């Protein structure tokens, strides 16, 4: 791999990678059973530079911001390189957001350019929220049919120039990306990630999970996500490895992708990993009793022999059929975005498939701790990565306290929000808002959250304030949404729920009609954002001088209620 300590920017490192690994394959793209693209680093560079020059000709300057809203595909990475090469700031947005949310973040980020897919642009351009965005100057769309109405956008295929673009160097401390960790409904949290953040994180991660030319990573997690950006783009590219994109995520084609492309690494969210586990367990259950007995014995032998560390060659022989179903080259499944249950992790490890379980936040630059597999531990989130200082602040007698992190990978702050930045980064330490403790072996155990939020199994961060708008004008005196575990701290990372605290008007009764109104409003939210219960509170909510609810003070008051009795299920 490249020696990333020598580089001052992601663009400079990628530029050298493109030259150094010129003849290696860097991208494969398949749509169902059809392979659509297989390109080398040289070709990748050529396409990105043609786009970069066209962007520069259209007025894109160093430090300007350009957003990408695309599903996982080769043009995502080509566009990102064009932006970095030009010295721009990348704003990767989650393609699964609604058009209104996209426009909100495009405006907040100050993006001057947008690169997106035609099917997404159709919805974006028709959205009334488009009129509120003033900064966007250039929109480039991919895959538009020949006679499509582009609604003011430019066609990707035509937006190129054969002239060489200017390479605009950046400093390590310059912002490379603005990554939204959440906040689509209320207060957008745009994490400003520097070039140094990415360079340092890449060195740390690849020291544990190395890539090299010929090794293939299957990109399934959205590339805007910090994990896929690092292990599905920057990491493999600085090592000359190959990234495989599938244009469909239907299980039958994903299965085929593993075997056809001999995948070495893949990243998944816990929900998908669990589904994979269920599928495998169902297949094992169908084995005839005799075969099942032999299989269980082989798993037990594998488990015993891989206890100190993984022995991939041995596991692949002992459990040949299981490994063959994954293509026979799988080195590890990287799981992230949310807490993964130890039983799921152990299930895969016992089959000889190590799961790189860890703990991270976008704000900290992807990963803070990762399991180094020496030995594998399903009960922890691993040890701090090289270069990460992690401390436990204000520990309780059992050692559990808030996890603080200091590292060159920690973001420089939240875009346009110095107040939130000051609350989050204190004296150079990032307050994670998560609770945990270290064990004698230096492994971190997470045991709950101190912050008012939940994380779903799909890796989605839900901040209560972001969903309150759906309850606006509810006929009550006042209301507030909380994460139940924030109000009543519970040593658990699973089964997190949201609750709606309500203060009724004087003499107002909690009627069936009101409950129905709340249920109807709740159903307007996506299922993973819905509240699970109501808490009735009979005092005025504490408020600031500007009449904002003091959430922490209200939570302290609510905590005096008995949790089990206070939450009325919806």
């Amino acid at each position, binding site marked *: 791999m490249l020696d990333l300590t020598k580089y001052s920017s992601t663009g400079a490192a990628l530029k050298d990678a493109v030259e150094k690994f010129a003849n290696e394959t860097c991208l494969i793209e398949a749509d169902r059973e059809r392979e659509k693209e297989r390109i080398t680093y040289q070709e990748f560079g050529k396409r990105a530079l043609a786009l970069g020059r066209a962007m520069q000709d259209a007025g894109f300057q160093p430090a300007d911001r350009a957003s990408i809203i695309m599903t996982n595909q080769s043009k995502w990475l080509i566009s990102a390189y064009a932006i970095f090469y030009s010295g721009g700031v990348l704003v990767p947005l989650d393609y699964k957001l609604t058009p209104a949310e996209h426009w909100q973040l495009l405006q907040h980020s100050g993006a001057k350019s947008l690169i997106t897919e035609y099917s997404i642009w159709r*919805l974006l351009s028709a959205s009334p929220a488009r009129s509120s965005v003033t900064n966007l100057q250039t929109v480039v769309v991919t895959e538009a049919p020949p006679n499509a109405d582009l609604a003011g956008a430019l066609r990707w295929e035509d937006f190129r120039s054969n002239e060489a673009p200017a390479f605009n160097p950046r400093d390590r401390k310059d912002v490379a990306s603005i990554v939204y960790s959440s906040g689509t409904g209320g207060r957008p949290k745009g994490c400003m990630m520097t070039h140094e953040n990415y360079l340092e994180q890449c060195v740390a991660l690849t020291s544990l999970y190395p890539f090299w030319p010929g090794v293939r990573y299957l990109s399934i997690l959205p590339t805007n996500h910090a994990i896929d950006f690092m292990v599905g783009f920057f990491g493999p590219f600085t090592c000359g490895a190959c990234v495989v994109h599938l244009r469909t995520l*239907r299980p039958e084609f994903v299965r085929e992708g593993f075997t056809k492309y001999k995948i070495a690494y893949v990243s998944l969210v816990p929900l998908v990993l669990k589904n994979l586990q269920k599928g495998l367990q169902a297949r094992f259950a169908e084995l005839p009793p005799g075969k099942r007995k032999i299989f269980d014995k082989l798993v037990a032998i594998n488990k015993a022999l891989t206890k100190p560390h993984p022995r991939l060659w041995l596991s692949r022989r002992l459990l040949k059929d299981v490994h063959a179903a994954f293509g026979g080259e799988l080195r590890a499944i990287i799981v992230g975005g949310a807490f993964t249950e130890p039983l799921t992790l152990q299930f895969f490890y016992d089959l000889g498939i190590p799961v790189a379980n860890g703990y991270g936040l976008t704000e900290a630059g992807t990963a803070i701790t990762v399991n180094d597999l020496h030995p594998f531990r399903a009960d922890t989130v691993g040890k701090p990565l090289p270069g990460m200082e992690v401390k436990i602040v204000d520990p309780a007698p059992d050692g559990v306290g808030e996890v603080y992190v200091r590292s060159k990978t920690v973001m420089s702050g939240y875009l346009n929000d110095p107040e939130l930045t000051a609350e989050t980064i204190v004296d150079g330490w990032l307050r994670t808002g998560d609770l945990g403790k270290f064990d004698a072996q230096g492994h971190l155990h997470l045991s709950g959250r101190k912050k008012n939020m939940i994380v779903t199994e799909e890796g989605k961060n839900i901040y209560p304030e972001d969903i309150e708008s759906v309850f606006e004008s509810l006929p009550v005196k006042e209301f507030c949404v909380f994460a139940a575990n924030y109000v009543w701290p519970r040593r658990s990372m699973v089964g997190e729920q949201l609750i709606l605290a309500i203060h009724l008007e004087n003499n107002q009764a909690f009627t069936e009609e009101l409950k129905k109104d709340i249920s109807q409003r709740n159903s307007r939210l996506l299922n993973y954002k819905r509240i699970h219960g109501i808490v009735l509170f009979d005092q005025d909510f504490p408020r600031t001088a500007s009449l904002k609810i003091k959430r922490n003070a209200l939570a302290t008051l609510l905590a005096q209620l008995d949790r089990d009795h206070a939450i009325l299920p919806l």
Partner: protein
Amino acid sequence: MPTIENTTQEVLTLAEQHFKLAPGSLAASDDFFKKLGIDSLQTLELLSRLENHFNIELPDYEVQGVSDFKTLAERIQSRL
């Protein structure tokens, strides 16, 4: 070729069958993520079923962001 109204009705009927709902319980303007509370994997299963029924290929990326049956039916109609 069927009309868009027919296609929409077929999509609704198939979705009702797929998610074991009473006939007539879904409407064209319904947001299927919100109404059915389904995740992305379940949506992909529904898409596969619709493809088989209409004998078309409906790329995931072409229906990305589509959340109501009416728009879904329009995307299908354009491929018939």
